C-alpha cells in the first residue's frame, strides 16, 4: 500500500499526540532496555563505562555460579510461599465479603486496606511483629506451647517472614480483584446449582472457583510478577541475608550493580528477570485472547 499525502498528514497529527509518551518511553524504557542487553555483553568500570567485550561470558558465569543458583532458588521459594497462599486467603475473604449485609462496605474497606500500604511501611511493622523478644508473634506462639524461632536470623525462617509480610501486602489487591470477579457471577448460576443440591464446600469448589478462574489466573500472573520485582521488604527486613537466603534475583541485581559495581554482570541478571516477566505476561495475554475467542 502506498502512502498518500493524506496518510502522512494524519500520521503526523497522531504522532504529535503520542509524542510526549513516546519520547518518555524511548528515554526511560526502550533505549535503557537495549542498553541493558548491550551492557550484559560487556565488562565495565566502576563508573559504568564499558571496557572490553565479554560476549556471553556473563551468562555462562551465571550458569555456573552457585550464588546465582541460590538466588533463583530463593526467588522460587519466595514465589511458592507467597502466591498460592495469598490468592487462597484472598478468595476466602472475598467470598466472605461478597454478601449483601448492612455495613459490608466497612469490612470491605478494612480488609482491602493494605492496597494503600507501602512495602516499606509494611516491612517495618512486620519487623516489629517478628522481633524475637519484643514482637507479639513469638509471644502468641509461646502461649500455645511453641518456641518461636529467631525469624530473621535463620535462613529458613527469614524467607518465611518476608513471604508472610508480602502475603499481607498483596492481600488487599487480591481481595478487591476476586471480589469484583465474584460480583460478576450471575445469581442464577448459584440458584441453579442450589436446585441441583449443591451446598457449602461443594458449591465453593464446583461453582465459585471455576466461575472466578479468570480472576484467579490474572492474580497468579500479577502476583508472581510482583514477587519477581519485590525489593523493598527485603531491603528493609533482611538485606538479602542471612547467608543469602533472601537474596532474590532483584536483590542480587541491586547488589551486583550498585554495591559491587559489576554493571555488566548485573545487566545479564536483569535480562533474565526481563525474560521471566515477559514470559509470564505473554502467557496472560494469550490466555485472555483465547477466552475472548471462545465467548
Amino acid at each position: 500500500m502506498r502512502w498518500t499525502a493524506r496518510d502522512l498528514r494524519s500520521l503526523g497529527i497522531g504522532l504529535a499526540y503520542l509524542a510526549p509518551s513516546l519520547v518518555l518511553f524511548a528515554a526511560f524504557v526502550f533505549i535503557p532496555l537495549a542498553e541493558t542487553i548491550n551492557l550484559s555483553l560487556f565488562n565495565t568500570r566502576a563508573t559504568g563505562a564499558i571496557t572490553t567485550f565479554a560476549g556471553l561470558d556473563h551468562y555462562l558465569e551465571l550458569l555456573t555460579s552457585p550464588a546465582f543458583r541460590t538466588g533463583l532458588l530463593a526467588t522460587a521459594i519466595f514465589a511458592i510461599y507467597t502466591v498460592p497462599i495469598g490468592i487462597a486467603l484472598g478468595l476466602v475473604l472475598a467470598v466472605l465479603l461478597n454478601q449483601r449485609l448492612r455495613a459490608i462496605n466497612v469490612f470491605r474497606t478494612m480488609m482491602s486496606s493494605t492496597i494503600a500500604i507501602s512495602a516499606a511501611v509494611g516491612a517495618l511493622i512486620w519487623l516489629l511483629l517478628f522481633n524475637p523478644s519484643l514482637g507479639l508473634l513469638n509471644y502468641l506462639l509461646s502461649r500455645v506451647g511453641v518456641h518461636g524461632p529467631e525469624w530473621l536470623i535463620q535462613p529458613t525462617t527469614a524467607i518465611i517472614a518476608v513471604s508472610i509480610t508480602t502475603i499481607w501486602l498483596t492481600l488487599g489487591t487480591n481481595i478487591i480483584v476476586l471480589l469484583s470477579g465474584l460480583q460478576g457471577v450471575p445469581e442464577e448460576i448459584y440458584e441453579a446449582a442450589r436446585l441441583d443440591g449443591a451446598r457449602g464446600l461443594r458449591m465453593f469448589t464446583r461453582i465459585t472457583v471455576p466461575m472466578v478462574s479468570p480472576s484467579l489466573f490474572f492474580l497468579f500472573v500479577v502476583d508472581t510478577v510482583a514477587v519477581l520485582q519485590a525489593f523493598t521488604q527485603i531491603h528493609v527486613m533482611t538485606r538479602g541475608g542471612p547467608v543469602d537466603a533472601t537474596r532474590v534475583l532483584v536483590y542480587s541485581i541491586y547488589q551486583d550493580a550498585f554495591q559491587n559495581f559489576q554493571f555488566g554482570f548485573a545487566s545479564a541478571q536483569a535480562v533474565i528477570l526481563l525474560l521471566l516477566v515477559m514470559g509470564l505476561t505473554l502467557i496472560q495475554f494469550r490466555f485472555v485472547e483465547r477466552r475472548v475467542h471462545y465467548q
Partner: protein
Amino acid sequence: MKLGRVANYALLVVGSIIVAFPLLLALSYSLMSESEIATFPPPILPAQPTLDNYAQVFATIPIVRYLLNSFVVSSAVVVGQLLTASLAAYAFSFLVFRGRQVLFFLFLTTLMIPWEATIIPNYITIRSIGWLDTYQGLAVPFMATAFGTFLLRQAFLQIPRELWDAARIDGATTFRFLVSTVIPLSRPALGTVAIYGFLSTYNQYFWPLLITNQTLMRTTQVGIAQLRFEETLRWGLVMAGVIMVAVPTLALLVLGQRQLIRGLTAGAVKG
C-alpha cells in the same frame, strides 16, 4: 453458603481485625513509651498514651521535608501522567491514522518490561545528566503510563461519536474537542489514573533509594526506613514514623476507593 447472620458478622469482624491488626498495632505502639514497649508480655494497648514518639520523629528526621518531597514528586508524576496519557488515549480513540495499531502495540509492550530490568541504564543516564538528588530525577521517568493510557482510552471510547461529528460541523479543532468535551466527560477515569499514579509514586522505594543521597532529598519511604538503621532501634519512634507516612495513603484509600477499585479490576474481570 448460607451461614447465620450472626456467624457471618462474627467472621467478618474477626477477619477484618486480623487483616488490619498490624496497622492497628503500629498505631498503638506509636502511642507507647519505649520502656512500656520493652515490658513482657508484649503490651497491645498503651497504658498511658503519649504523643512523645511523634515529637521525637520531628526531632530525629526531617519528616516534614520528606513528606514535602514525596508530595511534590507524586503530584508532578500525576500531572505528567494525566497530560501524556490523555493525549495518547485521544490519538488511540478518536484519531484515525495508519500505523495506529503498531504504535498501540508498542505501548502494550512497555507493560511487559519491569522497571528493575532497565534500572541500571536509567541510573547511569540520570547520573550523567546531573539529576541525582533532584525532583526531576525522581519524577520525570514515570510521567508516561501505558496503563493509564489504556484506562483513558476505554473511557474515551464510551463517548458518543455524535458529539465528535457535531463538533466537527461546528468547526471545532481536533485539540479543542479534546479539551472542551472529551476531558470533562472523562473525569472519573482521570480520577482513577490520578489516584493510581499518586499512590504508586508515593510508595516507591527502590528508585528514590538509588538516586537520592542527600538527606534533604529523601522521600518519605526511604526516610522512615532509615529509622530502622539508627544506632539504637526505638520502636515507638519507628511506629510513629510509619503512621505519619501511611496516613496520607490511607486517607486516599478512603476518599478514592471507588476509583482505585476500578483501576485494579480494569484488566482482571472482563479480559
